[in-house]
């Protein structure tokens, strides 16, 4: 044990005396810290703005004067997605997805205006976040510092004397690994600080702990790769070049290649294509604005029978309102079918992408990180489902008011003159059907469940690299 500690301490002394290593680490820490601060400021500002916008939108809706209820269905409402607490570390998909959805009758809108839409395009790496820095440059800094650990001793001819002192290859490796582990923990310090802020913003301690744990595993697996290469290869230059090559293939090339292959294997039709495909189905449903549409004949017959009436004018409820309800319900069902098909397609793409984690651990950690931070595809879908539920509930609430609070006579005569125009209205108190909204990240169990496959991939990677390390320890010979 003493030997291991001594080897580790020696390695640290070497690092502390190497300006290059120190410089590299300093640059990394500077990058992470500045990015963390900037991201935190931005996310805090956005949280503030979106919470404010959300309550403002709700207030505006409630403040609308007495109106025809269907006007309110079209007036609509906005919902905003406030970032999850851990988004200050990994904003994830937020950069490319819209954060607001306009809700209205008869339509499912998509989230609009992503942050990146108005930003200048300076290449894919310009969206720097603390998470991305860890995923990409954490690995690079470990390569920078760790590549020489064993091969340096070998080039200096120090391996033989060390081994002749009775130190085994694995002891040597363990000492170096310990030094690297301490270094990795140091690298994770900014993440720890960020986590404290996330905790204070209401994140559960366990989530923060898991996030810290997966990044530790990720960086350690890179550490194992680096040590293994350093132990097996004979020349320092070759080790560094091989590791750099491996690094950019894993972090830059493979993820994008995975995207190319995934999008050609599983295609998800765009919105316009879906809209057009849906039209045939929609025509069968009938136009909810037109109570005379033959599509509603059955509804009319059943209502007349139920209330024992001859004509719709005799019904105690507003037939037009009921038609609106019925058609909205059927339409929503149809829209949801298509929406679920799209979500399903996106999930299938996601699962395919996750499989590429077997080739590139940085892809795996990216998925785990986003899942735990609550900024992944699942949360994006959650937001859309939330939006749809809210939309359906307030639209149907308004339609119910239409059916129950507005007489059929007033309704059909609304365009006759100014007076009937004014009469065809319901009281503004009916707008209370709108629920308040606040986006909440899923429970930790659900987030972990979603990340489980990538966590599995990461664990297997880690164990495999550990085996590589032990194997290379045996191979350290004079």
């Amino acid at each position, binding site marked *: 044990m003493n030997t291991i500690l001594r080897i580790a301490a020696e390695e640290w002394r070497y690092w502390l005396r190497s300006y290059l290593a120190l410089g590299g680490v300093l640059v990394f820490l500077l990058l992470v810290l500045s990015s963390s601060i900037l991201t935190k400021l931005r996310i805090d500002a956005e949280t503030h703005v979106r919470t404010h916008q959300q309550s403002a939108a709700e207030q505006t809706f409630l403040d609308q004067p007495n109106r025809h209820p269907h006007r309110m269905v079209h007036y609509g409402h906005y919902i905003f997605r406030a970032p999850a607490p851990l988004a200050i570390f990994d904003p994830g998909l937020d950069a490319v997805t819209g954060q607001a959805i306009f809700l209205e009758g008869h339509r499912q809108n998509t*989230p609009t205006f992503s942050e990146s839409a108005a930003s200048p*395009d300076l290449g894919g790496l310009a969206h*720097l976040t603390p998470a991305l820095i860890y995923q990409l440059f954490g690995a690079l800094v470990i390569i920078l510092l760790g590549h020489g650990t064993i091969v340096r001793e070998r080039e200096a001819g120090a391996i033989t004397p060390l081994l002749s002192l009775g130190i085994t290859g694995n002891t040597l490796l363990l000492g170096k690994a310990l030094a690297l582990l301490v270094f990795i923990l140091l690298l994770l310090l900014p993440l720890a600080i960020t986590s404290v802020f996330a905790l204070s913003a209401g994140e559960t301690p366990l989530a923060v702990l898991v996030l810290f744990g997966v990044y530790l595993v990720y960086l350690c697996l890179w550490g194992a790769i680096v040590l293994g290469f350093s132990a097996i290869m004979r020349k320092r230059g070759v080790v560094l070049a091989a590791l750099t090559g491996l690094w950019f293939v894993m972090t830059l090339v493979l993820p994008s290649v995975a995207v190319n292959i995934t999008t050609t294997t599983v295609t998800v039709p*765009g919105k316009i294509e879906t809209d*057009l495909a849906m039209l045939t189905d929609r025509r069968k449903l009938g136009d909810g604005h037109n109570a005379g549409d033959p599509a509603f004949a059955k509804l009319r017959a059943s209502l007349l029978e139920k209330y024992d009436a001859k004509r719709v004018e005799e019904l105690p409820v507003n037939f037009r309102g009921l038609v609106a309800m019925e058609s909205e319900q059927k339409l929503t069902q149809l829209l949801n079918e298509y929406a679920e098909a799209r979500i399903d397609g996106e999930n299938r793409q996601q699962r395919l992408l996750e499989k590429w984690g077997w080739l590139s651990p940085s892809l795996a950690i990216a998925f785990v990180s986003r899942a735990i931070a609550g900024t992944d595809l699942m949360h994006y879908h959650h937001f859309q489902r939330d939006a749809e539920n809210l939309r359906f509930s307030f639209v149907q609430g308004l339609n119910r008011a239409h059916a129950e609070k507005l007489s059929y006579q007033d309704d059909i005569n609304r365009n006759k003159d100014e007076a009937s125009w004014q009469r065809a209205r319901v009281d503004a108190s009916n707008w209370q059907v709108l629920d308040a909204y606040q986006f909440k990240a899923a429970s930790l169990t659900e987030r972990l469940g979603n990340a489980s496959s990538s966590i599995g991939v990461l664990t297997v990677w880690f164990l495999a690299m550990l085996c590589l390390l032990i194997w290379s320890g045996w191979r350290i010979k004079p």
Partner: protein
Amino acid sequence: MVSRDAMPFDLEWLEDQAMSARKTCLNEIRFATRDRTLGLWMAVVLMLSTLSVGSGLVEVRHQLKTIENLLGADQQDRVAESSKLNDWGSAAYYSFHLTYAPPSEFAYAAIGQRDTQPWKHRIRMLALEGQIYEQDVINPSVALIGRFDFSFLASFVLPLVLIILLYDLKASERTAGRYNLLESMANRAESLWRLRAVIRVSAISVCLITPMILAGWFARTGFSTLLLASCAVLLYAAFWGVVCYGFSAWRKSGSVILISLIGCWVLTAVVIPAATRLLVDRLIPVPSGAEILMSQREAVNDAWDLPKDVTMDAFFKRHPQWSNYQPVQSSFEWQWYYAFQQVGDQKTEQLTNAYRNGRLQRDYTASWISLLAPPSLLERTLQSLAKTDLSAHLAYEKEVRSFHRALREFYYPKFFLNEAFDKAALANRPEFVAGK
């Protein structure tokens, strides 16, 4: 001895020089062919380049196919809706028109903004602002990672390959104890290193560019576009070659040189672009898109409750030629409906212009700063050659706007001159032609 200065135009001497230069080159090339590391990276680059342009071609074909399908479906939909049409107003209301920007013949090399900005819409004569920002969402998981297109390969991955191949140009010979031997052997030592660097850079560049050119031939890309793109990539490779060459002359160990070069890459490919983006976004404010949508929607919704004169006056200010039109005394009429749609657009004009100009200005500023970040510069250059940059997107937006204006110009006379509805006349509606 004959001094060379005495006969500066000695042809024989020149020929000798050329001959010997050729031999030196051939000797170095033969040497390079036995270099397994170089061979490996050439194979990797060739494979990646083929993969990138290959999937670029597939994507472009997919987009063209989508447009073709949509054109058909769009046409069918208009035919299917035509039964509902019984006046000009409903004709305008129920008829959607497909607008689109087809991918250019070079788009396979740089998909660029086509993944993040909309390039197809279905437009009708309602307020345009509510429609033009509608976007086909692509899977955000996919959008975040980004495609592996040729521009990404050339801009971000190529420098790393060159760095790995060139950093120990001299350092490896120094550690192997060959440096002095090589220098004492070569007549002009510096030219040996230069030649080696040039051969490695050229070999990698050829592997990178060839698939792109072949794909260009396949996709019928214009010769000048291919030439410009090749020149840009070669110039860029040469730039990194010079940088690596400069660093490799440093009398330090190979690892120090390699790490410094990777530092350069991180600085120019990541830090400067990221800082630029932050800075530009902060310095040049752009109204949020949601603001445009909301104010447009408020304007259109409020119009229902406003006295009709207010709307009509605002409308006639823009279209005085219809101002002698007499409104009918009903609470709803199409003329008024479309007038408030247009007034809704008019109310957000300022915001829309600010949004557009802000984006342009951000892009313009970024293009200047990208001179400091060659990877961004090359990617932007390739995107502009492929017409997948912001200005191409804004040009498409302009096309959509002018098409929408043409629609209004078609319908307004029908409304305000109270022309009798004539289904056959609908065939004369303007049609969207891409690239006009």
